[in-house]
């Protein structure tokens, strides 16, 4: 028996409201029941979507007029990932935040909204879901209501709503030209359109908003504020960085496949490469552990963008696999960082020493995640990076790839400084936290060792890993790790130039201007090319 397609959207939202309405003592059990049931429903759904794409028209109206839910294998895999991650995050917070019913309600509603964005086919409904999830995410960011997170939450919300208004304006123009919001229908009718020029403007408006959601280069200024704000609960940072930006990437993939006739892959390839390198440079400059991780998300998003726009099938699969992998290792890193911050009472990484002795299990899972994110052999990042580099043949492309990876390595060599050092103190950590970190950390290894079968299960694509090529990539990893250490030792530590990089901060008006400039450049590119 498979549940109807609306289950992953309505089940968590319904439970969230129930938790708010029912007496206090039931909330913990209820939130775990909700997350567990959601995971079970998503597994059933994924099994069905593996056979053939599932679709459901709501209210007996079919597209182009009605609203349709549509789950192909990729969408079902993303919903499954969402359900799994939310369950693990609830385990992580079982002792503290889950005992707050406002948090449970908002967290479960966010789960439903994120699943909805993955499943919806109708662009207007996607707009509604994106707006509401922005509101919920902003409320979660400032959950502890201290002044700094209030400012960051407001900044995040206003700039995101600003971009969503662009999206809505694009939808208005799109509807006028085509008479539908359905991505499926658009994908069918647009290839037959002879003159695409009237669709350039709506396309640019929609893509500007999607790229802001995905935090592409000039539009990323909200991300470190939202994901790295000191007082935001670490599970919220993990959700935002692990899943929420993936919504932007996912929408990008869906929009690009609907608008296949408009070729912008070169534009986004360059934008992705710039994002990846700039994100790494900003990450190296930081000394706040949460901010390092946030800028890293920017850098990895750039890498995924490069993979998706390279044009090769294998690279695109690598990009999709990297979306899943990034969700895993970035969640571990944010959760681990949360534990470390609680334990040491500081976020400055130079003040944190001896974390390995003090909390061995958390440190082990964080190190697994670091090996994953840097693409060390046997870990999950190495598989997705291998696939991404599969089609790169020219020198410029390879050089850019190596540069991105060295940047990642340098910042994580800086990051791992906190594990070294001696201490006699043993941290007392709630077992749920350790368990959550260990589960996700070991998955980083499992998804690397069994990478081929995981990719086949999740995306239905058979890939082959050439042992000689993989060995060559592993050697390249060791060489880059060595050079990254040298760069860190002689080029980063104690150099004042990095302080100046750290001081670069887009204000609100500059961020709004960058949205408009991005839109203008994209429109110009479309009309001129």
């Amino acid at each position, binding site marked *: 028996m498979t549940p109807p397609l609306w289950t992953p959207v309505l089940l968590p939202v319904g439970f969230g409201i129930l938790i708010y309405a029912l007496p206090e003592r039931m909330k913990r059990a209820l939130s775990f029941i909700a997350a567990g049931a959601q995971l079970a429903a998503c597994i059933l759904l994924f099994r069905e979507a593996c056979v053939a794409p599932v679709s459901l028209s709501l209210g007996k109206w079919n597209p182009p*007029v009605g609203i349709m839910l549509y789950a192909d294998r990729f969408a079902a895999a993303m919903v499954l990932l969402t359900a799994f991650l939310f369950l693990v995050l609830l385990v992580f917070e079982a002792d503290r935040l889950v005992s707050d019913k406002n948090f449970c309600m908002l967290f479960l509603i966010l789960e439903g909204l994120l699943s909805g964005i993955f499943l919806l086919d109708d662009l*207007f409904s996607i707009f*509604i879901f994106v*707006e*509401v999830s922005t*509101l919920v995410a*902003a*409320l979660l960011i*400032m959950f502890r*209501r201290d*002044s*700094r997170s*209030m*400012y*960051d*939450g*407001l*900044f995040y*919300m*206003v700039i995101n*709503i*600003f971009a969503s*208004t662009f999206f*809505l*304006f694009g939808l*208005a*123009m799109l*509807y*006028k030209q085509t008479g539908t919001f359905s991505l499926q229908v658009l994908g069918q009718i647009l290839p037959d359109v002879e003159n695409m020029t009237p669709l350039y403007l709506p396309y640019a408006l929609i893509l500007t908003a999607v790229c802001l959601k995905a935090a592409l280069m000039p539009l990323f200024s909200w991300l470190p504020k939202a994901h790295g704000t000191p007082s935001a609960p670490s599970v919220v940072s993990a959700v935002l960085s692990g899943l929420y930006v993936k919504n932007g990437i996912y929408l990008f993939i869906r929009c690009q496949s609907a608008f296949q006739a408009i070729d912008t892959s070169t534009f986004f390839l360059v934008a992705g490469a710039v994002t990846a390198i700039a994100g790494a440079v900003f990450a190296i400059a930081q000394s706040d552990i949460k901010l390092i991780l946030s800028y890293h998300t920017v850098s990895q998003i750039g890498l995924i963008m490069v993979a998706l726009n390279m044009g090769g099938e294998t690279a695109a699969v690598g990009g999709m696999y990297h979306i899943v992998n990034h969700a895993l290792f970035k969640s571990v890193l944010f959760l681990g960082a949360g534990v470390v911050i609680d334990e040491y009472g500081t976020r400055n990484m130079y003040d944190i020493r001896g974390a390995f002795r003090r909390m061995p299990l958390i440190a082990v899972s964080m190190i697994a995640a670091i090996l994953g994110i840097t693409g060390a052999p046997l870990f999950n990042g190495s598989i997705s990076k291998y696939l991404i580099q599969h089609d790169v043949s020219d020198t410029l492309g390879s050089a850019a790839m190596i540069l991105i990876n060295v940047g990642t390595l340098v910042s994580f060599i800086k990051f791992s400084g906190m594990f070294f050092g001696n201490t006699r103190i043993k941290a007392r950590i709630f077992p749920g936290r350790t368990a959550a970190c260990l589960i996700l950390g070991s998955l980083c290894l499992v998804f690397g060792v069994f990478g081929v079968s995981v990719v086949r299960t999740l995306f239905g694509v058979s890939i082959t890993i050439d042992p000689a090529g993989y060995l060559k990539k592993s050697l390249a990893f060791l060489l880059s790790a060595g050079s990254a250490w040298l760069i860190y030792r002689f080029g980063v530590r104690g150099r004042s130039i990095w302080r100046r990089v750290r001081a670069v*901060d887009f*204000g*609100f*008006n500059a961020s*709004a*201007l960058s949205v*408009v400039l991005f839109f203008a450049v994209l429109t110009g590119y479309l009309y001129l090319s």
Partner: protein
Amino acid sequence: MNIGEIGAIVIFFLGVYGMIVHRNIMKSILSLSVMDAAVILFFLAGGGSGSTAAPIGSEIASGAADPIPQALMITAIVIGVAVTAVALTMLIYIHNKYGTSNWEKAGKMRERP
């Protein structure tokens, strides 16, 4: 393109201009509402003009106004109200805390512990 749509485009970019130049958080929220209103106007102006028949009843005249934009815009208005309400609540909090409603000044104060 009719007069409503041209007006909507002008108003939309007025709102965008407001977002870029104003440092006051209140004015940013107002600009957001202006942009929202412009999009709603654009949708409705595209759906039909004053002379088209209303799409009501079981026998709908051919050439009646398109009902979908109108149905969607009710949703968009509701969302806009919710967003404005939450943003204003946060603004009140920030103003009470910092005594300013300027993005730059509040941002500088935020850096202090």
